[in-house]
């Protein structure tokens, strides 16, 4: 059995530190997802109406986000704002801002898509039955749109969790940074620590994302 460098995880508080690092990453993605989803619902509903300026805003915003890599957007926020406006944002703050903006645009698009996927006849029938516009929206459109929306929103959260791993490159001390510190500190005692520690992180990310992917798939199947 070759030395896989796993023993380093049992030393001192190393495993707890890794988990703390994972929590830093998850916290960034969950805060951003929450902001993005709430703002995205608002933007999506506003953009769903015909001839709304919000439709143009959403379209332009989405184009930027679809073309530019998240890493570039993080760089622009982290380095660009200090140069342009004199803001000195921390890496974590830059990440939350970028991911929230991303989440808002994608969620907005999902909401708009889900609402417009409800057949027009549903709205017309509800109106013919004498429901008020607000009632039509709350009682008829939303419940149908939500079924389509929830699996897609879960997917968005999963993608955010995966993308948060990038924040180590703008200096946030999250799980990959903690891993580097642990490996560096144990260079002599466990020269193979890099294998065990990075494998552990690999598994941790899988365990964080897999249940969400599964839930999204199940819900999609269940509600079809």
């Amino acid at each position, binding site marked *: 059995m070759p030395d896989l460098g796993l023993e380093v995880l049992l030393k001192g508080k190393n495993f707890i530190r890794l988990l703390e690092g994972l929590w830093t990453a998850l916290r960034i993605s969950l805060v951003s997802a929450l902001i993005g989803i709430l703002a995205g619902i608002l933007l999506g509903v506003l953009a769903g109406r015909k001839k709304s300026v919000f439709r143009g805003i959403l379209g332009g915003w989405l184009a930027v986000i679809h073309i530019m890599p998240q890493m570039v957007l993080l760089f622009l926020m982290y380095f660009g704002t200090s140069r342009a406006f004199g803001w000195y944002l921390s890496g974590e703050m830059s990440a939350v801002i970028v991911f929230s903006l991303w989440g808002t645009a994608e969620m907005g698009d999902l909401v708009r898509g889900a609402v417009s996927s409800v057949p027009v006849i549903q709205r017309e029938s509800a109106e013919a039955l004498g429901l008020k516009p607000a009632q039509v929206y709350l009682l008829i459109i939303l419940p149908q749109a939500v079924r389509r929306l929830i699996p897609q929103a879960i997917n968005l959260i999963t993608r955010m969790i995966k*993308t948060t791993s990038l924040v*180590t490159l703008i200096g946030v001390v999250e799980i990959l940074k903690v891993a580097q510190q642990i490996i560096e500190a144990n260079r002599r005692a466990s020269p*193979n620590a890099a294998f065990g520690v990075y494998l552990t992180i690999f598994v941790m990310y899988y365990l964080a994302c897999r249940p969400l992917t599964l839930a999204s798939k199940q819900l999609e199947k269940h509600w079809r």
Partner: protein
Amino acid sequence: MDWAYIGQALPLYGKAAWLTLRTGAAGILLAAAVGLLGAAVLRRRVPVVRRIVSAYVEVSRNTPLLVQLFFIYYGLPKIGIRTDPEVCGIAGLAFLGGGYMTEAFRSGIEAVDRLQEESALSLGLTPGQAFVHVILPQAAAVSAPAFMANVIFLMKETSVFSAVSLMDLMFTAKDQIGLYYRTAESLLLLVGAYLLILLPLSLMGHTLERRLRHAGFGT
């Protein structure tokens, strides 16, 4: 904005963009090959291999590329598998992309009626011939939009390659900012270079999607 500096730095970014393009294209091609193979295995229901392919798809899709790269570049050498940065980047992209491509091709192949395959077989085609000449051409039309989306996604994912010391666009921009504090110029060049690479891909994707919608394939 210091245009003299931009002119001076331009070759550096050109070199970096070429690296991004080269590694990206190689990774995407490999990913497509892996995806095709994976989808064929899932279609043919090869007993044990099918399980392995399904597990691979889940693992590659549920972990970030950066973590995959760290494991390949820093972890694997400890058990004797050493790669140079460029090979590592391409391998990582192929590992990640293979999962996404398998899904894209699988859904396309699934959309082809089983009857098509059975008819081809009853006409005397071998299973291999039926797959290449009958199933794939029809599946390609259905898979094309997802395939293009994956190509763009994977090209964007190359932006983490600087983490395994590849001198790509991100690396160059960060380096230049660190060396000369030319933040505005560096960011402009960075965004410009990515636009040059990604805008044509994105437009191609849109055109393809529109064409296919008119062709009435799919659904």
